[in-house]
Every structure is written in structure tokens, then in C-alpha cells.
């Protein structure tokens, strides 16, 4: 199974660990992720006004660079922007002509655009994944945190049922861990409001964490670096044992028996730095 891989800025910076663990897991699972050469920004946010075509240049360039091969990303935001940009290119001929003329490229919206979780579900299969797990995370109570960008708008993202998604729960099950469902798993974390309106993000994060803890979760998995940042940095310290936040790929690598201790140590250290700086 060969895919073109688009990392995006954060995967080479703050979310390096998501990339490292995914790469290790992918090679253990026989999934080949070939990084795009000279890739650039995904666009960060999908433009919601028809005339904001300038914001599409960068994602369309990325989509075209995959040359029709399936394009995989890890960051929920990157995947969101790429998927929606592709859908617009398929749907809106006028926008497509303008963007591709400007870029001087040929692109008609072809190729699959996938999040790595979709590769695991649809191409590898969670059953197969479960068979390949070496160190099942038995007894670990894990909650999925989907956030917004993977699920909505569901007509375009086609990721899962936007109100009752199951992909992350099925993933957790495949790793051998115990699934904990929390009612706030599809609510927004506050996103980039943590930059301008930190108070808002504190409220949303408190609800998400509290609801996960009430449901009995020890750990929360996410596929979005910004969600993770907010969940770790905007959480109020109420003196209780915090729910630990992981990238989905970190638990995947752990369950596959890859560099288990080193990964855990890194995660602990990051949390220490985060709580010290509060």
C-alpha cells in the first residue's frame, strides 16, 4: 500500500511526535508513506467565501502534486482543507479554471484524499490491524476526541457519521483498549480562539475533559495538534488526575510495540513543561 504523504507545518514542529509515531507504525503495518517533495502550507483554513480563491492556491498545488496517487495527511486541519479544496475543484468548474490557470497546472480534482485513520479503516481494515497488534492496550480506558474538522461538513468530508462517529472507537478497540464514549467527543475545542480569546477555549476544553473524565476515561486520543494543544494547555488544574491526551498514532505505536518507553517519556516531559508554565 503506497500513499503520498503531506505532513503540513505542525507535523515538523510541535506535533513531531505524531509524525514519528505514525511513520514507525506505518512501516510496521506495511503502509508506505512517501512524503511530497517541496510541499508547502495546506492553507490552514478553508476559505468560506467564493471569492477567496487566493487561499486555494496552496492546497490545490498540494493536491496536484500528488499526481493522482492517494494523498494522506495526519493533521485534521490539513486533511480538512485539502479534502474541501478537492471537492470544490470537482464541483465548481469556474473556480477550478481560475485557480489552475493562475497556478499554470492541470488539475481536475482527481485522486483520493485521506486521513491516515481512513487508511487504517478502509484500506488496511481494523480487523487486520487488530491481528497485527503486539501489545494490546488491555484495560486502558481510552476516549476518542474527534473535534470538528474531520467530521464536518459531513457531505464533503465523508469521514463518518457527524453525530455518531465510530471510526476512532473502532480504532481504540483494534488496539485492544477499552472504549469510553464521552458526549463531548464531537464538540469544538475552541480551535485558534486559544490565540485570541483564550478564555473561550478554557471553557470548551473544561467541558470536553470533564465529560471524558466523568465517562471514566484515563486517556483521550486526537488527530489534531491544535486540539491537543488546547486540551493540554487550556485545561484548568482542579487538582484531580488529568486525563492524558495522546495523538492516536502514539497509542498505535505503543500497541504495535514500537519504542514504547521512549514515547511515553517524551509525552510525560511535554506535560510537565506544559503544567510548569501555567
Amino acid at each position, binding site marked *: 500500500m503506497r500513499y503520498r504523504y503531506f505532513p503540513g507545518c505542525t507535523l515538523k514542529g510541535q506535533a513531531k511526535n505524531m509524525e514519528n509515531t505514525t511513520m514507525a507504525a506505518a512501516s510496521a503495518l506495511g503502509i508506505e508513506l512517501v512524503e511530497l517533495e517541496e510541499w508547502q502550507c495546506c492553507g490552514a483554513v478553508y476559505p468560506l467565501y467564493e471569492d477567496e480563491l487566493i487561499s486555494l492556491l496552496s492546497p490545490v498545488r498540494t493536491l496536484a502534486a500528488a499526481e493522482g496517487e492517494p494523498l494522506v495527511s495526519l493533521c485534521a486541519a490539513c486533511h480538512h482543507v485539502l479534502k474541501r479544496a478537492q471537492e470544490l475543484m470537482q464541483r465548481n468548474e469556474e473556480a477550478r479554471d481560475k485557480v489552475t490557470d493562475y497556478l499554470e497546472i492541470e488539475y481536475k480534482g482527481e485522486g483520493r484524499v485521506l486521513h491516515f485513520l481512513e487508511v487504517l479503516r478502509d484500506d488496511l481494515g481494523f480487523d487486520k490491524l487488530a491481528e497485527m497488534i503486539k501489545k494490546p492496550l488491555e484495560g486502558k480506558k481510552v476516549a476518542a476526541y474527534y473535534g470538528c474538522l474531520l467530521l464536518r461538513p459531513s457531505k464533503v468530508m465523508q469521514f463518518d457519521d*457527524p453525530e455518531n462517529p465510530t471510526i476512532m472507537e473502532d480504532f481504540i478497540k483494534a488496539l485492544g483498549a477499552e472504549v469510553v464514549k464521552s458526549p463531548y467527543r464531537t464538540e469544538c475545542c475552541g480551535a485558534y480562539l486559544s490565540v485570541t480569546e483564550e478564555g473561550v477555549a478554557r471553557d470548551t476544553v473544561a467541558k470536553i475533559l470533564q*465529560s471524558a473524565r*466523568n465517562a471514566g476515561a484515563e486517556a483521550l486520543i486526537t488527530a489534531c495538534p491544535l486540539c491537543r494543544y488546547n486540551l493540554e494547555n487550556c485545561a484548568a488544574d482542579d487538582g484531580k488526575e488529568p486525563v492524558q491526551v495522546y495523538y492516536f498514532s502514539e497509542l498505535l505505536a505503543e500497541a504495535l510495540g514500537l519504542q514504547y518507553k521512549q514515547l511515553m517519556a517524551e509525552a510525560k516531559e511535554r506535560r510537565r513543561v506544559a503544567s510548569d508554565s501555567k
Partner: protein
Amino acid sequence: MPRTGVFLCHCGSNIAGTVNIDQTIEASRNFPGVVHVDEYRYLCSEMGQDIIKKAIEDNNLDRVVVGTCSPRMHENTFRKAAAEAGLNPYLLEVANIREHCSWVHKDMEEGTPKAIALLRAAAAKVALNEALEAPKLEVEKRALVIGGGIAGIQAALDIAEAGYPVDIVEREPSIGGRMAQLEKTFPTLDCSACILTPKMVEAAQHPNINLITYAEVEEVNGFVGQFDVKIKQKARYVDPVKCTGCGICWEKCPAKAPSEFEMGLAKRKSIYVPFAQAVPMVPVIDKETCLYFRKGRCQICEKECPPQAIDYEQQDEIIERRYGAIVVATGFDQMDPSIYGEYGYGQHPDILTGLEFERLFNASGPTGGKVVRLSDGKPPKKVVFIQCVGSRDKARGMNYCSKICCMFTAKQAILLKEKLPDAKSYVFYIDVRTAGKGYEEFQRRAAEEYDVAYLRGQVGKIFPEGDHLVVHGVDSLSGKVVDIKADMVVLSAASIARADAPELGRKIGINTDSYNFFNEAHPKLKPVETHTAGIFIAGACQTPKDIPDTVAQASAAAVKAVGLLSKEMLQGEACTAEVDEAECSGCLHCVAVCPYTAIDAKEIEERYGDGTLKRTVAEVNPALCQGCGSCSAICRSGSINQKGFSNEQILAEVDAICLQR
């Protein structure tokens, strides 16, 4: 050369606003064969008809063209007028210059030439029209009612009272339908069973009514006055003649299944009657869950039955019968709200639909009439009702208003307060709709006297927290976010058409709308008729409606059916197809396309040289032919013509339109 008169209707400004009448009149004078032209403001009025009649007599007209609205509206009116003036009614043609012309064009520049073209075509066609006679058809003096809910029961009683025999075909083991599931009815709070069961019994005992329960309509052939219907009587595995309804069998039966009547909130036995007042009081065995049918042993019911009514060998049977009229009253379903993930329906036992909640009030319901949480059996203190779950929602649900929810919610909130005076109800609504006699007053009583809090807004999320369900919503009037720690949540799930309504519609030859409800023939003037003569609709199978409207519509449908049954003879279709046997090659493509099975093959003998030759040709049964024209369109040799729409007539119309340019 014919002597044709052309008459133009202004239809107020409906036609005259977009069609220049003077220009059209002048142009009509020059059509071949036209000897008289006139116009009038409303041609369908008595005055207008008199103008036509007088002109026929004064000018010795033998053909008439009227330029008016669609023939669907007034063709009969004008044909009748022509007949009164001594003209064969089929020598009159309607040019539809309203729906086909003035209504679809914006100005006279486009409307006028189009109207002239349509009139020219009609004048060319009418020249070739022949005098026709409609055949007389017999009427089978018996009606079929499909569906044994309150609509079907009422329609059947009315038809039976008028003196005609009527069969009710009901899919479930008992008649009663949705109304039997209700505890009380708004706005009078009558006990539903108390007013329904007497009607059920009356239907069962009426000498003119025959109940065919646990049965479905399989096939309908024929036409108005003579519908040939096949009904599948499903095997009950209980002999209804021997059975006394004593109840020992279902008491002793060891196997259980979710009760359909209780919306799955309680179990019934594998041999069961759906509810205590079932009519007929004869159980059925549900083969899917019966131990004997599944594993070959048990037979407890057979052993215990005092009159030995159990019969495992019973088979499904087909009943074939002819009916003059059919009333369709198949009712509605409740939408499954689990697609609204934010409400969590199906994931928590204390989140119910309206119909499920209704069952909790009923003394023979799943909780014995105690309104309690299904999670822990405790009486709820706070109940939140959410309106428009699937209604008025074009994104995830139905675009229409389900009409009954505002009222049944007010009713349930009142009943709740009467049962549990400490309980508090909250209703999230978009608009409160209470059009109906005594409805507004009833809903206001809920708010004013029963302490029901109405919150204008919707709910974004429901999730369990400890013992409660947190309902997170908004009151749009105050602009405040509202969090209610509720004990129960009731969703007003949309009323929807039966999933198999389109399939039934195809079987009986009536159509459904985009929501799968059956279509009436006219939204205002023919609300119980369908486009198929002799088939009528009643109740919520047409669109969601409450009990008073359902009963009124059922009686209306019954009157229509009785009107039909009371006729000695019906006038059949005059414009039937006819075969030119000399031209027919016997390919019988027409037989395959005829939707009314009106065409058969026939052997004819022809003289050929010195001897005779046998060959096959098509033959149309004019009693069955409905004049749809499919055979004529598919006939390769052009040897089937439809009377009144012959190939020559249609080509004359086309020529008249094309050659004027």
C-alpha cells in the same frame, strides 16, 4: 368542409392578461373550416355556456373549439353544453391556452402567437373528430377498505350504513390502528379506547362489514366499478371459528418478542393478540419467534387450547373478490429519530418518542400506567419535550409540519401534571401551531394552568450526567442558553408515510408525493379522490392529520364510494383503442405495454387465393381500455388507433402548428 365554431375565454385576466384576445379572434377567423368566432369573460359560467349553445343552434355548427383552461378542469362542462345543443360531445375540442400558455408566458408578445397556434391545432384536429359513444359499465356493489384504523373503520361503517357490503383488509391481527395506541385524545381528553372500541365492535358486528385481518392486498386489476382484487390472508395458525379468545394460549406460551403495539417497550408472547381490546379477539402465532416453528417442539398452546383451535398446518390463502370502489386508509408511521445524534435517542432508555411516551400513561401499557423512567422506575420530576424532530427540516428530515405534535405534546404535558403533580414540563418549540376547534384554548391551558414552560428554541445536545439527562438548548426570545437537568426527554418525531406506501400505490394504481404520501386528485376540490377513478383516500396516508380531520375525511371518502356504488351503470371511456385487423401484423407489442390488460391475441380467418388463411391479430376489450394510448404509440404498423386521438388527428395538430411558420 366542417362548420366549426371557435370560442375564447378570458378567464378574467388569467388568459386575457397574457393573450391578446382581439388578435387571437381575428386570427381564428382564418382557420380552415371556421365559420363562427366568439369570446367571453368566463366561458365556463352559465352565460358563457349559453353563448356556445346558442351559436351551435344559430349557425348550424357541427364542430366546436374552446380556448380555455386545461381540459382536466372543464372539458366535461363544455361537452355537456354541446350535447345540450344537440351536438355529439366528442365533436368539441379544448385548446388549453391557460396552463399551457398564458400562465407560463410573461407577456402578450409570447402568449398571443402561442394561443393562436394551439387554437389552430385544435381546429385542425376537430375537423377529423368523429361522433363517439361512451360504453355503459356495470358496478359491483361492494367496497374494499384498505387499513383498519379509525379512518378505515369510519369509512367502512358509513358505506355499510348506506346499505353496501364492505370488506376491511387490515395488516395487523386486530383493527384499531394508531388510535388504539393512544391514551387520551386532544382537546377534550376523551379516553381514546373508550371512544374507539365501540366503533371497532360496531364494525365487527355490522352485517354489511366483513373484517379480513392479518391480511394484505396483493394485486388489483380492473377499473372503476369492477376492481378485481387479490388479498393475501396470512396464516394465523389459529382457527378463528373455533377460537373463543379465552387467552390461555398466550398466557402459557413460553416464547417472547418485542410488542409492536407497545412500540417495543414491552414484550408480547409468540402467540398473541396485540392489545386487550383486540378485534377480532383471535390470536396469531408469530412464526419467527414461535418455538415450535423454530425448533419443532413446544406445542404448549396446542395442548392447552380448550376448543383445540390451534392449527400449525394453516397456510397463507389468496382471497379473490371484485369491488366497485376502494378506500385506501393505511395510516402513518413515526420517524426513527436516531439520525439526530445530538439527541441520543436509542442510546438512553429515558429518551423516548411521543408515541412511546404515550404508552406509559396507559393502564395496560409497559409500566401499567405509571409514568416512570424506564431506566430506574422512578417517577420523573422534569420532562423536556422537543418539537419538530424531523419535521420542518429539509436538511435531515421532512420539510413539512407534522401537524399533530404541538397538540399531543400539550396533551401529554397536561396528563403528566395530572398524574404527577410535582412534575414540571418544558417544551422546546419553533412555533406553536394550534389551528382547530378548541385547540388554542387547550394549549394555553397547558401553559397557564398546568405550569408547562414553553421555550421558543431548539436543543443542541442531550447527554447523561449522573442520574439526569442534561438538555442543552436555547430560548431565542430571551436570547439565553438554557441547561435543564431533565429526568426524561420526549421527542416529537415526525409523522411519516408508511415505508411501503409507494409499493401499495403501484399495486392499486395511485401515486404518491415526494414524501410517499398518497396524492389526492386536487388539493382543494378533490381531497379524497385520487387520479384513478373509484379509488379514494382517507386519513394520515394522505398527509399527517389529527383524529377529527381523519374521521371527516373518512366519511367524505365513504360518501364518494357510496355515490359510485349507488349508480346503476357507469359511463366508460369513449376514447378507446381499436385495431385495424387488415393492417395488424400480430406482433403483439401492444399486449406487453397495455397497463390495463385490455388487449389479447385473437385468431382470424382470411380468404387467401382459393382457400383461407389463419393469422393472429390484436383485439382490444373496450370495457377494460382506459384510453391511455400506449398501444397506439408502440404499434409499428400504425394499425391501432385511439378514438378521439387517432394518428391522423395528431398529425393534423402537428401540421397546423408547424405549417403556420
